[in-house]
């Protein structure tokens, strides 16, 4: 029996992340502990959020919890493998007593609690152990809404050009083949995914940019669901069904690879299961492996993966593409190599002309599309923010989006 993902990926990753800081725990942390009523308790999913990329916005500036050179207006405490605390610093000129009611109006700190599964997080929200969380699954949000009225369920459109996709490692011995990647893209029933699991609350994606983007490429080739074409492509590439388990093989090598995906998230599990079904149907054996966000990031950065289910937001620039896929030289995380892409990427560096830049980015997208460097699945419409409205007020800005935690106001309880 294989060891579970918690054993294989999460624990090492968390230990690696938290190792040096654990010395602080528990004595100092206990001394600095703030009452629940004075902090925002943020629920995080291990599969969704990489601790190292967590940031806190204070006075219109984003501060990474860890790293960065700038002085931070808060103190970070690691209380356990699942709990991180941020205590805001009180400005020197604002040294009011702790009991001051005006000081208690805004949260004095943030607790980040990590959960292994979305279900655990939802249970914690229903039990009001968590004040704020974000979810991808509308079904999960509905569960909360049915259970408690204390929470504000706030669907918010994710940042533009956020796309869910399957990325391939070009260093992999057969995923580097364009025919295989084309076959994989043709075999994924994206329409069914959007219909069945996203309840049609997403746009099918052909490339990284959404229709509203100036870089949206309308002429990209559609790799719509076509399993027959996928089979043809595979057979033309020499992948035949010779394995006793009906897995396609070539030269005795089975068409099998691992697919990393964020663990503990209902939607991702459903997506991966459907992708596995779709690929199984054309004789591709995929082994889904749930991993934490940190482990996934590490794997992607180091190129230690076959394929991965990734959600990424592409910056509206040529660098948005090159930062993710590499410059086409084969030196990036994905080992993506395409001379045309490399040339175009290089060209973009010297372009100041807006129209020229657009043409270059469009060209880069065409090349990525032709290569199917990634199977673009969909642009999600919604991210669900869950806010404890019984505990806080003033948590939304004028655009109806959540404010930085420090600006929230703690409701006075009667």
């Amino acid at each position, binding site marked *: 029996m294989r060891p579970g993902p918690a054993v294989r990926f999460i624990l090492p990753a968390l230990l690696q992340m938290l190792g040096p800081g654990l010395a602080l725990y528990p004595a100092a942390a206990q001394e600095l502990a703030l009452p629940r009523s004075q902090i925002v308790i943020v629920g995080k999913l291990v599969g969704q959020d990489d601790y190292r990329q967590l940031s806190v916005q204070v006075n219109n500036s984003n501060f990474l919890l860890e790293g960065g050179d700038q002085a931070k207006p808060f103190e970070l405490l690691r209380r356990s493998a699942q709990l991180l605390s941020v205590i805001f610093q009180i400005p020197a000129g604002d040294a009011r007593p702790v009991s001051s009611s005006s000081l208690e109006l805004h949260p004095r700190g943030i607790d980040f609690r990590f959960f292994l599964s979305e279900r655990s997080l939802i*249970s914690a929200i229903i*039990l009001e152990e968590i004040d704020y969380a974000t979810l991808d699954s509308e079904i999960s949000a509905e569960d909360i809404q049915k*259970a408690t009225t204390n929470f504000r369920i706030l669907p918010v459109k994710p940042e533009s050009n956020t796309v869910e996709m399957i990325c391939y490692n070009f260093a992999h011995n057969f995923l580097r083949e364009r025919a295989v990647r084309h076959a994989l893209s043709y075999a994924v029933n994206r329409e069914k995914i959007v219909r*069945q699991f996203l309840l049609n609350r997403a746009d099918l994606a052909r490339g990284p940019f959404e229709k509203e983007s100036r870089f949206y490429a309308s002429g990209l080739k559609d790799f719509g669901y076509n399993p027959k074409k996928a089979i043809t492509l595979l057979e033309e590439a020499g992948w035949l069904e010779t394995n006793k388990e*009906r897995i396609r093989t070539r030269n005795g090598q089975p068409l099998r690879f691992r697919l990393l995906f964020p663990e503990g998230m209902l939607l991702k599990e459903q997506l991966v299961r459907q992708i*596995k079904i779709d690929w199984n149907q054309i004789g591709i054996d995929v082994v889904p492996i749930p991993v934490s966000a940190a482990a996934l990031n590490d794997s992607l950065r180091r190129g230690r993966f076959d394929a991965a289910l990734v959600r990424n937001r592409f910056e509206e620039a040529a660098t948005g593409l090159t930062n993710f896929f590499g410059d086409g030289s084969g030196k990036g995380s994905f080992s993506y190599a395409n001379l045309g892409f490399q040339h175009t990427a290089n060209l973009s560096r010297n372009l100041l002309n807006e129209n020229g830049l657009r043409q270059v980015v469009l060209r880069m997208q065409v090349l990525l599309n032709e290569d199917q460097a990634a199977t673009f699945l969909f642009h999600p419409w919604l991210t669900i923010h869950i806010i404890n409205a019984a505990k806080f007020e003033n948590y939304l800005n004028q655009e109806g989006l959540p404010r930085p935690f420090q600006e929230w106001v703690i409701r006075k309880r009667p």
Partner: protein
Amino acid sequence: MLVPRIPIVHRLFTRLLVSHILLVSIPLLIMGQILVTAAQRTIEQTIFERNLEIARRSSWPVRATLGRARDLLHLSAQSPTFLTSDRMGQELMINNLVNQYPIFKKISLFDTLGQEISSTAYGATINPMRRAEVLASVRRKQSFTSEVYMAEEKLPLMDIAEPVMVFEEVIAFLWAEVDLKTIWALVDSNLVGKDSEAFIFRFDGQFIAHTDRRLVLERQHYKAGDIISAIAGGGSGHKVYTDADGVEMLAVYAPLAEEKWGIVIQQPTREAFAPMRTVRFQVFALMLLGVIIAALVAALYTQQIVKPVNQLLAGIEKISGGDLKYRVRRIGRDELGTLALHFNAMTTKLRRIQRKLQRSQRFEILNKLSAVLSHEIRNPLNSMVINMQLMRREFNKAEVDHKKLNYFYQILSSEIRRVDDLVSNFLLISRPPRLEKAPQRLDDLLNNLIKVEVPEVLPKGIRVIRKYRTPGLLVNIDAKKIYQVFLNIFLNSVQAMPGGGRLTIGLDVYSRNVTESLKRTYAAITFEDTGKGISKEHLPKIFDFYFSTKKNGSGIGLAIAQQIIEKHGGKIFVKSKIGKGSKFTVYLPINSIEE
């Protein structure tokens, strides 16, 4: 119309109105109470039965959901496709099952040694304790269903397993984790009211599904032991009990015997029996409306009855006040209308009698006057004629005797004065006295009288005694005329005691009820002597004009006294006993000051 001043509770209108309202209200209240009681029982029974039916029926979809999960797993395990499929084909099937049926959290395929062949769980570990149980069951070629247990995620799960058999030999088994969260929605659909709760629990009381999710997540237990016992015994029914928060709840329960679960739907009795309260309110509102309408109708009807009675009463008051011309208006054709007709006829007759009486009184006065005239004028006239003849005879004599002439002249003058006095008295009687009223203390008036007269009467052996019980009484009177009255009575009393005696003058207050609500107050002035008294036959006549038992009495003193007193709105009475004395009482109204 003059309404009699009767306290409201004693009025005919009030009594009739109250009796009418009571006549309507009492049967209405009794009927309403009977209706409410009957409705209450019916509604209670209906609510019990309805809720119980909902509880029983709600167990069906739960059974169906679990049964479908078992059937799906069973069919998959027995499916020829599954049996003949390679690993990937089997993976495909179980992945499809999990993606299509959310009740399956994960499905795994194991060989008979308990080694995992494939799983939708992507490497999640499986509890080895449960694996032993499952293996034992499937090796006996039996399906397996575990107890409900709580996952780390705090959600209720249940394991089911089905053996995969070829030629009656177990070659593998499918093991599914059933996510019981899927039955939460079924429980939600069983709510019977806003504050109601529905839940499913194990026989040990632990909640599996609850409309309040927190109770499941917190792994709480249902604590109504008797309901749990009843369900464990396979019973279903209802119970009203008070929960831990002190809320009275109506709970209906039914067992899910196969799963060893129970289902309860409960709601606060205040909500469950709200329709009952509505019915009660409506019935009482209707009753109240009925009473109000009855009261209005009764008020109108009573008014119709009482109005002619009041008219008759007003008529009686008018007539008793002397207005015999008053006629009661036509007030209907009923008995009261007839009474009014008779009443009017009676007043007509009374008026006729009054006129006759007045006429006869006039005749009597004329007779009396003619008798007085014939007696009182003829005698002086005769005397005058005789003395005139004697004077003429004396004038015819040669030598006139002036002494005689003077004597005759004196007689003539005296007789003329006598006639003149007579005429003056007539005028006094015929002209009613004109009063000049002013506030006057009666004790002062009496004291003045006593002060003036006592020196005269003391030598005659008469002692005057004052008995003023309420001195200082102020009345609105013509003091001169009242003094004259008192003097008259005083002198009469003195004359009645020629051999001396005792005259007691009293002053007191006297009240009498004119009607039940009207009281009048009088000053009562008494002159009580110890004289010879007045005989019974003379007593009724002493206030008549020209009646006197005295030699030189004019017979007008007491008559005029009575006239003055009555003009003041008062009365004069006399009581007397021969040989004992007489008592004159004068009543003068005290409230006349305000008039």
